[in-house]
């Protein structure tokens, strides 16, 4: 027999909001999408800013773990364009300077150092500055931003967007130690910092040691270093024929940048089948749209050169076989030569800590990775915290932000002599959306439209200008139309047993057949005997207490459209549509509630 579901547990309803649950920073997605539809772009932006710090950047570059999770894909082909809606909020907002947290003039006397000026460190600074901490950022490059600035080309992410969102934090009064590469953590530890945050990312591009690599090195570049040089304008051209080796997002950025720096014949080669490429689908799509061919199952064998002058790359064709989901790549013996002038290597990156002394209390594991607590982000040296790619290897910006928030909580606790395991609980709220007998304060008449494509700049022009942003973003009309596709999964179907008269009205109207009245049973049996069996075990079922007839109400959360028709057809109000607000706690008390309607 199943017990009634405990909806008081903040995770129960949070899990129903699939996008927010999937987001590492737990950004309240449906809430800001509704605000966009109401043209409240500034409010939508601020909700994002509180949660993910770089909405303008992420609205263009996020890896969007929210989108595959989007409930819409369970009933429609494509998810809501959550990421690009975020950008619409950033593009259309008005001045937010008056909405930023106040930075106390009277500091709290604690000094924090951040090593590396990327998204993780900046998030820590964002959270700690309003609390009165004195924050110093060390950055080896002349400007902060980390990989957002160095590795993402400006036709995807304009410099102005980075400047705006990075400077907003720096302008809180962060002490900038730029152009200063930290060569020894010991030196920093010996200064008077109360805590140190390491957010140095994963800046070491992997090399490819095959014959000819050394001899032809003048024309073989490590992708992320090359992109950095392009970003800082140290490089402004490339040979006409370019081979990019690798299948991740860096490879896509390398090939598209090459086209804009004079490349005429640019190819991407991948060792694995195309379907296994690591790059996001949409990045691959964009590269192909620009006419770049992708050669899969090509494994680089040798760099061909004449007296050190690169002539081409010799590849061996591979064959992929799958057995029980495990892939094996075998060489076919067939080789192919791609002639080229330059090669860009984009076969992965890693973090590296040659600058951290091994005798200062920071333990490293067998792979030379620092041992970092998964919850507190503290290393084995209590004053030193890690986050972003520096902690556990390459992820993406949104993870770095999530790490930054958590590390800031730990640093605050640490500096205030509180237990690091004592994490603040999230702020949750549940409010009825009923306005009238059949009127709700959220748009429940969802659109049946397919996902709207983001308009692009003219392809001919964009290929000639490295700084011309390819995606133009949604205009207000498109943003509104796309926002109407959101199912509002944060508007929960809340059931009150003692009001139910078991009239079946909700069962009859539910467009997705997720409501059932049946005899109680074990979860396994209940899931099987529903009108449409609830076979997606990653989604919970909502089970009521016993009703008058002895039956229970069982609702499969999996497919629910949150259309509110159950509540509209309920004569007694046993069903109500209630907005669930979940706000992740940060070191600085969140002000999101000011924007949540």
């Amino acid at each position: 027999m199943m017990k009634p579901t405990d909806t008081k547990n903040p995770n129960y309803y949070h899990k129903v909001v699939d996008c927010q649950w999937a987001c590492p920073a737990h950004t309240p997605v449906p809430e800001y999408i509704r605000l966009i539809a109401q043209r409240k772009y500034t409010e939508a932006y601020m909700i994002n800013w509180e949660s993910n710090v770089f909405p303008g950047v992420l609205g263009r570059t996020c890896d969007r773990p929210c989108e595959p999770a989007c409930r819409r894909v369970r009933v429609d082909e494509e998810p809501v364009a959550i990421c690009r809606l975020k950008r619409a909020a950033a593009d259309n907002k008005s001045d937010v300077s008056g909405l930023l947290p106040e930075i106390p003039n009277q500091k709290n006397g604690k000094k924090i150092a951040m090593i590396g000026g990327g998204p993780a460190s900046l998030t820590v600074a964002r959270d700690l500055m309003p609390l009165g901490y004195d924050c110093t950022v060390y950055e080896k490059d002349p400007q902060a931003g980390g990989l957002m600035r160095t590795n993402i080309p400006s036709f995807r992410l304009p410099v102005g967007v980075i400047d705006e969102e990075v400077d907003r934090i720096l302008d809180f009064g962060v002490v900038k130690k730029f152009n200063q590469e930290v060569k020894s953590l010991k030196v920093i530890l010996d200064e008077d910092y109360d805590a140190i945050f390491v957010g140095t990312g994963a800046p070491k591009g992997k090399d490819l040691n095959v014959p000819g690599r050394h001899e032809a090195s003048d024309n073989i570049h490590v992708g992320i270093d090359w992109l950095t040089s392009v970003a800082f304008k140290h490089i402004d051209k490339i040979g006409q024929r370019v081979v990019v080796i690798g299948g991740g997002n860096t490879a896509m950025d390398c090939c598209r940048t090459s086209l804009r720096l004079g490349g005429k014949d640019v190819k991407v080669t991948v060792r694995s089948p195309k379907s296994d490429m690591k790059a996001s689908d949409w990045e691959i799509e964009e590269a192909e749209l620009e006419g770049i061919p992708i050669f899969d199952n090509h494994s680089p064998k040798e760099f061909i050169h004449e007296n050190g002058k690169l002539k081409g790359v010799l590849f061996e064709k591979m064959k992929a076989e799958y057995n029980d989901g495990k892939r094996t790549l075998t060489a076919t013996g067939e080789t192919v030569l791609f002639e080229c002038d330059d090669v860009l290597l984009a076969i992965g990156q890693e973090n590296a800590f040659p600058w951290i002394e091994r005798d200062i209390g920071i333990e490293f594991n067998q792979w030379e990775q620092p041992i970092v607590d998964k919850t507190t982000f503290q290393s084995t040296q209590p004053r030193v915290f890690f986050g972003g790619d520096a902690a556990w290897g390459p992820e993406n910006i949104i993870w770095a932000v999530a790490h930054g928030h958590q590390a800031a909580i730990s640093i605050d606790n640490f500096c205030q002599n509180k237990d690091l395991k004592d994490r603040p609980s999230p702020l949750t709220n549940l409010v009825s959306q009923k306005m009238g007998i059949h009127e709700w304060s959220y748009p429940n008449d969802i659109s049946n439209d397919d996902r709207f494509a983001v308009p692009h700049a003219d392809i001919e022009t964009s290929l000639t200008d490295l700084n011309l942003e390819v995606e133009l973003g949604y205009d207000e009309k498109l943003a509104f139309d796309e926002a109407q596709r959101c199912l509002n999964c944060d508007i929960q179907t809340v059931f009150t047993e003692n009001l139910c008269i078991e009239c079946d009205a909700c069962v009859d109207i539910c467009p997705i057949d997720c409501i059932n009245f049946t005899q109680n049973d074990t979860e396994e049996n209940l899931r099987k005997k529903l009108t449409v069996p609830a076979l997606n075990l990653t989604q919970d079922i909502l089970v009521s207490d016993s009703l008058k007839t002895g039956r229970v109400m069982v609702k499969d959360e999996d497919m629910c459209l949150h259309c509110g028709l159950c509540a509209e057809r309920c004569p007694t109000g046993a069903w109500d549509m209630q907005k669930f607000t979940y706000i992740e706690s940060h070191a600085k008390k969140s002000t999101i509630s000011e924007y949540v309607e």
Partner: protein
Amino acid sequence: MTFIKKPIFRHPSLPTNAIGLTYRDYEGVVSTLCAGCGHDSITASIIDACFELSLPAHKIAKLSGIGCSSKTPNYFLNNAHGFNSVHGRMPSVATGANLANRDLTYIGVSGDGDTASIGLGQYCHAIRRQLNLTYIVENNGTYGLTKGQFSATNDKNSKNKRGMDNPFGSIDLAVMAIELGAGFVARSFSGDKEQLVPLIKAALDYDGFALIDVISPCVTFNNHGYSTKSYDYIREHRSVFGDLDFVPEEETINTSYAEGESISLKLHNGREINFKKLGVDHDPTNQHKVINILRENRAEGKVTTGLLYIDPNKSDLHQTLKTSNTPLNALAMDDLCPGNDYIDNINNLFR
């Protein structure tokens, strides 16, 4: 009333029937009845029954009179033929339609006012003639559309929402139908689809007049504590008269009842209906016994539901009238007009 359209999105794992449709292909527009109305559950049951029988909607005609109940054909089978007729006159229109085209399946939806008051005469004669029609009475004992006056099926011991007594006794449509010679008489409850859906399936398959009197609580005017047609009252006072197991022709007959516990009846169209027996005395083909049981139960305050009475060998109106097997509306000029020569011959007989 709901203002938005029901979303077109449906569960991707929704089962399909023999003609490749999901139950949602049998829906109509969203109901405009009060939230919680029993009629909406009957609508859902009709949809389920037609879906499960894999009936093609364009071979069905749905007819109704006037009243809350008579609005409901708009809420199911969007692709069926429909006629929303005059108050109490649904049986006449159904008779005409049925005589013109015997190939369609006829579903008549009526209410307690439409049937037991203004349409009582029409009701009686449709039964007397064995019109091949599934006649569903959505019976809530009240005139909901005119703000809750007692209807002719409201029980004497029931009161209205404001506590007024009902001065008159009630008409029992099921007993009346048995008396008048209906071949298929059932009573059910809108809150029990497990009982109602098989009854509708069996009724749709029955050749002849099939009545299903469905107690369907009116949440707005007749669902209070001293109503005898409220959800709670029916759940407390219901006596189930044998579970129905309807076996369509194409399915293997496989009943789960032990021998002696069930009765199997073959309909004259070859299909079969199985019942679980309530007691040794229970024989749904014995008119007198059934009427006695219904009266006894009623005296004890019980509402008897289930397939109450069935005569598997009744002939329907077309058989009685010996009409042509080809529907009348499909008879061509050649069939209908014998030609000038033949008519001249006939005329000559009288010269």
